[in-house]
């Protein structure tokens, strides 16, 4: 069975069918791009996978387990992390605190131990230190050490996108959902982020599901590509296959 498999995923909002019978499979340690015009259901698919929306029909299998219908924090604990198209950071918090929140499920300090953090040898302090050390590695990996203590809402848009990615990585996920990571970035930043994503897959053995508007990047990184249009899958395959698919050309360029 595939590492990650979506089968017959459907989501209706009232009379609108945002996602219509979408199925695909993703192999471990590959990059899978989901592309399609605006409103084609890409983000809805991500929301269904991460538990923010409950799918109307269909199932999501992850690592041998059925996860559709679970709440978002249960899905997070199974090793799925995500970023958001419209940044959802903890704006008043510093970069480091945002990343530390990503460590939430790996940490063990509860109320009592938290209240009683008397010195560096208490459980809460050790828990903090160990996890801060891990997060530091990610800060350096994504070049965020310089803004470690800055409240994230003060950071430039592109940097905020990187903080979001770093926060997702801090969760040490097995599957990473990245929703338009390069939106609002310039060409240079985009290339850099593309390289970073590629490296992450190789270094961390990470499986990545990528929504990306920039076709060159989406195609360049991906092992497999799925094209959605009006909530329906219209093509799936390697970037080469998809690029030549007549329906894809039609969806992007019109009937002509």
């Amino acid at each position, binding site marked *: 069975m595939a590492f990650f498999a979506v089968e017959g995923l459907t989501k209706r909002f009232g009379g609108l069918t945002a996602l219509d019978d979408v199925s695909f499979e993703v192999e471990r340690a590959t990059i899978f791009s989901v592309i399609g015009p605006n409103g084609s259901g890409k983000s809805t698919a991500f929301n269904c996978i991460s538990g923010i929306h409950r799918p109307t029909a269909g199932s999501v299998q992850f690592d041998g387990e059925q996860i559709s219908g679970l709440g*978002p924090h249960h*899905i997070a604990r199974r090793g799925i992390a995500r970023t958001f198209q419209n940044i959802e950071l903890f704006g008043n918090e510093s970069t480091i605190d945002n990343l530390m929140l990503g460590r*939430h499920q790996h940490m063990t300090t509860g109320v009592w131990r938290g*209240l009683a*953090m008397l010195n560096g040898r208490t459980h809460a302090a050790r828990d903090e230190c160990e996890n801060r050390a891990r997060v530091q590695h990610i800060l*350096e990996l994504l070049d965020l*050490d310089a803004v470690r203590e800055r409240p994230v809402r003060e950071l430039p848009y592109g940097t905020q996108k990187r903080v979001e990615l770093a926060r997702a990585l801090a*969760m040490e996920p097995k599957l990473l959902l990245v929703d338009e990571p390069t939106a609002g970035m310039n060409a240079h930043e985009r290339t850099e982020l593309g390289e970073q994503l590629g490296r992450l897959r190789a270094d961390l053995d990470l499986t990545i599901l990528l929504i990306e508007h920039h076709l060159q990047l989406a195609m360049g990184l991906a092992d497999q590509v799925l094209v959605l249009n009006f909530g329906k899958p219209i093509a799936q395959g390697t970037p080469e296959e998809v690029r030549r698919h007549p329906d894809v050309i039609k969806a992007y360029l019109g009937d002509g």
Partner: protein
Amino acid sequence: MRSTPDYYSDVQLFRGRRSWVKLAVLLAVLAILPLILPGYRIFTFNYMAIFVIVGLGMNILVGDTGQVSLGHAGFLAIGAFTTVLMMTEVGAPFLLALPVGGLVTALFGFLLGLPALRLQGPYLAIVTLGFGLAVTQIIGHWELFGGHMGLVVPTATLGPISLSGDVSKYYLIVGTALVLALCARNLSVTRVGRAFRAIRDSEIAAATMGVNVAYYKTLSFALSAAFTGTGGGLLAITTGFISPGDFHFLLSLMFLAMVVFGGLGSIPGAVLGSIAMGYLNLEMDAFEELPLLGPVLESFSDGFMSSAGLPNVGWVVTGLLIVLTILIEPKGLHGLWIRLGKIVGRGGMDTDAATGALAGAGASSSSPGSASAGPGGPPAGGN
């Protein structure tokens, strides 16, 4: 990259010798204070310290978790009545009655947290408002609680020490406030506090990071209630007499006002705001006794503000403070402090050590403390 132990400086409250000196000075001042103050002033301090405890609880719920409550006077009442009944009906020593009061209040906090899972903003405000009003009504109609007449609080003892005078109560109450401030601060820089603030900033993101939003929201209500209930128990022994009328709606409003005035999400802010509002609440008529200004204010109040013919300058000033806070500095005293720091410049203001001296560095306060790799900063030299 730094070695693991160095990361403790990130969450350490007292860094370097300066902050320890400031703490020592603060403790010394607080220890000597009751010996030099006139007797009736000690009561004022006890009262303000109780407000500080409530303010710390309010800050957890409103400042950190971003949930509103207009019913905390109800929690104060539950804590006060439980503590007293534990002493009179069960015969428990005060040292047991007080934590039981806090725990029972926490249970009610948890229950009030349940509707908060589905309600937000004004709707939650109305539910908590109803809770606060209902508690005093129920207590007033129940003979066990002394009905509307209230209960006389027996003299509490701590082992061999009788807490009969204001001075002995002072050390207990101020000591409790200091310990709870330290606890609140520790909680806010560690995992649970971060989860609270994550919920405040983005509930969806918090959930997708693995935070059980329902659990932490109800936990926040329970913790906030526990602080307030403890304050209630201490209030009972301070005043020596409690009745449902003491826990009126305006008190709930005051509790909300003091964390807004202090600066939401900041522990030093909550402490200062609570001290200020505690003083105002107790000394409502102090304004009318001011030289020169007093009579003017009083006649103004009588002529334009008061509906019942009673002077209400204190309330008008309280209201004005809130309006001005929102208009001028929505981050309250804490925001004002940061702004001052920026004007004066980095050199003169060691914000971190100063907040440390208040026994609660602004954990969620982001900018001030964290930026200090300066003189008071960690010797390891951080980033």
